[in-house]
């Protein structure tokens, strides 16, 4: 009886496998084979990551595009961030990535190294895509070794997202140019007065440590490796650990329990370092009022900030580079598209779209104000290079920093582990 159960299970599995293979073959020919038809209509595949809200907006913009270009059809696909990149990697390895897709700076070198990304400069020269009319310097984010691998749709910059109500209650009012000492003092004040931890765990956020390093003449990455040494990180994490112990940073266990929500929007912390456009998400998630505060500095002026961005990239294997370029051009320049998308993917990157969208809700207004102030303060520098593997390293920094702060790993072991995982990620 038992054996028969076993055999049955195996047989069924195999049968399932065989049918899956047949279906799989069918599916491949269905979508890979025919993307252009007799009447000159071309189909391009477009995928991105994000929530349903973003998908709704993007679908509206695609309707506009298909109206303007009736000969181009767009097939869409979206997932959450993690699943998107897992799927993308598999598709790309199989030689079947989407023709055009959302991209971020951490992935440019990785997929350039693997020959997946189309250098859009040729399409710019051919007149299918314009890199003019962008807000100052933002197209640089998509540039690697002279190749234009992505065109920004929106820009964002690191900020301190704060729970305004808690900050008010504690009487803390962060000022532009405040120092790290002042910042940590503020966390203590908040904790003393409101019993809420000040921060969600600043020490394991790669993009924040990058700013700190930049303030001190270093950076998280050089062109091909880490831009800091074990002693730097040991000090950074040791301080972080003692602040968790002191209660001014949220208990990492609670941070883990709050996931996928942030401890800030869950009411377990008064602030968090993240991208400024995340305020939109936290305002939707949490019950308090959220605003933006300045990044602490080492010398009283320099925050080390830069503009990062979400981009559109094209596959080097696309059969329709011209249509893909026209699609990107429309999506980044068309004012209507800007109006629909708003600040969902950051402050609109092209001047046409930036002018077309007038934020009316307080959150969007605050983000616009923040980026405006940051730009005017003259603190924006050139973006830190992101070598291949930066995405894996960002995740490792967060994970190992979290383990360390729970006291599960000694600081010295955590640092060692991070360096060895980084080494593997650079080589992968």
């Amino acid at each position: 009886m038992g054996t028969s159960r076993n055999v049955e299970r195996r047989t069924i599995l195999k049968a399932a496998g065989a049918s899956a293979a047949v279906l799989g073959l069918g599916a491949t020919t269905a979508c890979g084979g025919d993307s252009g038809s007799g009447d000159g209509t071309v189909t391009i595949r477009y995928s991105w990551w994000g929530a349903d809200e973003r998908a709704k907006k993007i679908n509206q913009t695609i309707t506009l595009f298909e109206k303007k270009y009736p000969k181009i059809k767009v097939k869409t696909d979206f997932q959450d961030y993690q699943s998107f990149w897992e799927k993308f990697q598999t598709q790309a390895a199989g030689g079947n990535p989407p023709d055009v897709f959302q991209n971020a700076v951490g992935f440019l070198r990785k997929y350039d190294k693997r020959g997946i990304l189309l250098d859009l400069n040729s399409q710019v020269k051919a007149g299918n895509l314009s890199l003019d009319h962008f807000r100052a310097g933002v197209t640089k984010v998509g540039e690697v070794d002279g190749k234009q691998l992505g065109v920004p749709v929106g820009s964002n910059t690191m900020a301190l997202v704060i729970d305004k109500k808690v900050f008010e209650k504690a009487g803390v009012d962060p000022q532009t140019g405040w120092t790290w000492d002042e910042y940590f003092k503020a966390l203590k004040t908040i904790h003393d007065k409101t019993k809420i931890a000040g921060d969600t765990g600043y020490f394991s956020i790669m993009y924040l440590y990058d700013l700190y390093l930049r303030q001190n003449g270093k950076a998280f990455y050089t062109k091909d490796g880490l831009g800091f040494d074990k002693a730097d990180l040991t000090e950074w994490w040791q301080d972080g650990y003692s602040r968790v112990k002191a209660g001014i940073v949220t208990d990492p266990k609670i941070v883990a329990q709050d996931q996928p929500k942030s401890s800030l929007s869950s009411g377990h912390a008064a602030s968090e370092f993240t991208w400024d456009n995340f305020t939109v998400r936290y305002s939707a998630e949490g019950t308090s009022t959220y605003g933006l505060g300045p990044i602490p500095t080492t010398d009283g002026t320099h925050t080390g900030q830069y503009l990062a961005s979400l981009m559109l990239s094209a596959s080097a294997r696309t059969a329709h580079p011209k249509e893909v370029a026209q699609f990107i051009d429309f999506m980044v320049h068309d004012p209507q598209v800007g109006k629909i998308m708003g600040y969902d993917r950051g402050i609109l990157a092209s001047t046409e779209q930036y002018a077309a969208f007038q934020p009316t809700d307080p959150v969007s207004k605050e983000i616009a104000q923040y980026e405006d102030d940051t730009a005017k303060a003259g603190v924006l520098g050139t973006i830190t290079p992101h070598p291949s593997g930066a995405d894996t390293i960002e995740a490792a920094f967060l994970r190992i920093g979290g383990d360390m702060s729970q006291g599960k790993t000694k600081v010295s072991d955590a640092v060692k582990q991070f360096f060895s995982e980084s080494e593997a990620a650079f080589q992968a």
Partner: protein
Amino acid sequence: MGTAVTLVKDSAPAARRAHPAAPATLRRRGRRENLAGYLFMSPWIAGFLLLTAGPMVASLYFAFTDYNLFNTPKWVGLDNFTRMFDDPRWQKSVEVTAKYVVIGTPIKLLLALGVALLLAQSRRGQAFYRAAFYAPSLIGASVSVGFVWRSLFSDGAIVDRTQSFLGFHVGGWVGNPDWILYSLVALTAWQFGAPMVIFLAGLKQVPRELYEAAEMDGAGPFRKFWNITLPMISPVLFFNVLLETIHSFQIFGSAYVVSNTQCGPADATLVYTCYLYQQGFKNAQMGFAAAMAWMLLLAVALVTAVLFWSQKKWVHYEEDAR
């Protein structure tokens, strides 16, 4: 032989029929029948070669290479294997899996045996109860049940509230690194139906006379269970232990879904296959992932061997008694 020839269809050429080559015809017929047989089996053979044997050979090769899905695999010898032992996350995944196997399997089997003992007695409606207890093991491995489990054990969900009502303030298990693994143990334990059915079959085989004899000697229910039932069903018990242990080592779906694909929080549900998946499909370290897969095979083989060896000590086959 003559009959065999007459059985051959007369469509065979006359020249051949005249030729005294009966063995050849036979062979041809046999071959033709074989061919038909293979033709019928071809979907499975193709499936086996393409989807099992081929990938296995490839994975064995990749296990000794540095391969990121995009490059040409580079031979690195045993590097991937030696790297595992220096990798704290690999150690963590072994620890989590071992914990799951050691805690989950006995609980599941005890439940299966206990319920089987209750259902083995003839009472009204036993067929209904058997079906009812078996049902979870039919659907338990599905992704949707994983989602249900995640909802049951989240903050503010039914388990959390029941606990709070009873005075335990643990919160949702799913978000708590100290508890989430036990929600997976609960999920596997809930699927005790399959081993239960096997236990039931085993219990039916125990001769009634043995119990009657024991009762004559004044044995109580516990002694009857310990001295008759357990030894008599020990081969079935052995089979279930083996099957469920191997099965537990392969846990993936429930850990992946219940932890919302993160195998966390804080790596609390980083079971072996989950880490394998992360290394392979997230970090594109396919060589390392392949090596991990073969290491798992070795480990399962070793545990199986130990279990087989231990049979001598506790499994009682009827032939031995004679």
